[in-house]
């Protein structure tokens, strides 16, 4: 019984330098476990604590994702071991590409019941990779998952749906994307952090993996910064709240939005 946690080691775009030509430079930004991924680690850990399943972390990206700190940061979150593909040919790879590589890794691990992922990544924020991974594997893909537990012969899950909360039973492998507040992820503890260095890490070569090649590609035409928005930026001093309120209400009435 193996549960895979598919996560990302990535920087926050807030820390990137964006040129006037729309180029995005992440070189000064610090990477970390992607903001919405800890919940996937926690769900995996809770299921594994109940079932004794092995928890394997998987991450793919460019060469910079494989650092000692990155490995330990992941291993300190309840993983038994870690598998990484770090190759500069994956720099800027789209969601389908990343999903194809992840799928090859998951197939190689074998005997995987569940792949758990976060809702979306902190840097790209599309919320697509996990569901495309399901497609690559030919498995059921479900997002907005708010609860996972082991049950006889499979897993019981809950999901947020527009009308409320749906409960489901899984009897085969699936890829699940968790809502960010599915569960409060525990803070990596002392023992986890100090023990991380001892856990196994496997680095797989992209050339050795059987990855479907891309059929459709994007040809870049142009890039730009988002339009500044031409906001008026009228700043009012709020230390006299009554006067400030009067000034604002007056301006909004004049602008005919009130």
């Amino acid at each position, binding site marked *: 019984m193996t549960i895979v946690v598919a996560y990302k080691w990535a920087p926050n775009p807030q820390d990137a330098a964006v040129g006037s030509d729309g180029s995005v430079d992440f070189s000064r930004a610090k990477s970390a476990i992607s903001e919405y991924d800890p919940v996937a680690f926690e769900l995996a850990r809770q299921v594994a604590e109940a079932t004794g399943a092995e928890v394997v972390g998987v991450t793919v990206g460019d060469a910079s994702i494989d650092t000692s*700190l990155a490995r*330990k940061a992941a291993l300190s979150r309840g993983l038994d071991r870690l598998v990484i593909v770090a190759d500069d040919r994956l720099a800027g790879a789209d969601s389908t590409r990343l999903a194809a590589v992840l799928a090859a890794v998951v197939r190689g691990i074998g005997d995987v019941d569940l792949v758990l992922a976060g809702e979306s990544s902190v840097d790209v924020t599309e919320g697509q990779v996990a569901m495309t991974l399901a497609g690559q594997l030919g498995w059921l893909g479900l997002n907005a998952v708010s609860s996972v537990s082991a049950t006889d012969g499979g897993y019981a899950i809950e999901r947020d749906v527009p009308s409320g909360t749906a409960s489901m039973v899984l009897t085969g492998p699936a890829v699940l994307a968790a809502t960010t507040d599915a569960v409060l992820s525990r*803070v*990596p*503890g*002392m*023992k986890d952090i*100090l023990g991380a*260095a001892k856990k196994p890490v496997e680095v797989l070569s992209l050339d050795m993996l059987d990855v479907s090649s891309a059929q459709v590609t994007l040809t870049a035409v142009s890039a730009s910064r988002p339009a500044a928005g031409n906001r008026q930026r009228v700043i009012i001093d709020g230390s006299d709240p009554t006067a400030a309120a009067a000034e604002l209400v007056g301006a909004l009435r004049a602008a005919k939005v009130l």
Partner: protein
Amino acid sequence: MDFGLTDEQELLLDSLRELLERECPESYIAELDRTHQAPTSFRLALHEAGFASLGFPEEYGGTPCDAVTLMMLTERVSQQGLNNGYGIELLQAKDILEFGSQEQKADILGLLAAGAVPFALGFTEPGAGSDNSAMTTTAVHRDGTVTFNGTKTLITNALDAKYLLVMAKSSDGDDERTAISMYLVPMDAPGVSTNKLEKIVWNTNDSCEIFMDDVTVPDSCLVGRQGNGFRQLMRNLDLERLVIAATCLGLAQCAFDDAATYASQRVQFGKPIGSFQLIQLKLTDMAIKLENIRNFVYKTSWMVDQGIPLRSQGALCKRYAAMAAFEVADDAMQIFGGIGVNAGTRVSRLWRDLRGHRFGGGTDEIMVHIAGRQIIREHR
């Protein structure tokens, strides 16, 4: 010389920061300070994340850890604005680890691992503060028991703790130092009574008088060897001084950051007060003191980790850290002006708590006594 953090230190500090955000916001600390309560829920959260059993051998449920890392964690908790939030209990338990019986070790370390306060230090008496060997509490051994009579005062955390680590005179010998023994006495033993003291500093640690009136317990309560109490106590005093210094560092950093932020936002005479030179002078000198305290704390921790004898280093570090940290808080109070002296403000709490560290754990003056003699001895 590598002043950077290891991966483990970065991850530990990240976790600690997250834990503090969740379990120890300023509103929590302010409320505890106002109501004179201990940070029990935060202590439990630290325990659950495994931070409570740091620096101990694994066979007692601990995780071995170096002094530099421990001081980083102590500094960070203090920087949140919480006084005595981390480090003190762990370090006190080292006494038991080194000298205690198997049963005592299991008991105390088990309590620590469960996030409880295992014991309070029962040394100070009304007539024996800095002059600790002038104590008059007696421990009479007879027929497999020990009977205690005496009064301890200004004892911290006793009301929260299971035991009192009592230093008492166990014989009538001339040399006061060989007459003192160390004992673990249960706080709920018949004959033990307490009187809570209201103080103006360290509100999140209770302080009380403890009266022992014919308190009789089995002599298995002895820690280590009879007559060896003083020497046993001295053993870990340096480590205690280091933890206090790291605590002072964190609290002072918090006060400094608050004051600098305030100075950049508070407008008087049409400008932020941070643009006036007298405020800049204060902030600059505060920054220098913080850098000094930091270097002192981590160099001393490094010496501990390298097994280099501290000699006077611990005393020098504690004296400087406590005094300089208080000066930083005092300047911060001045920068805040009238706002700082309002009850419930963080800067006023930091100022009060830092004042306590100038006599807690050994006064500024005793540190001179310790270091001064050592310096002369080394230069003979």
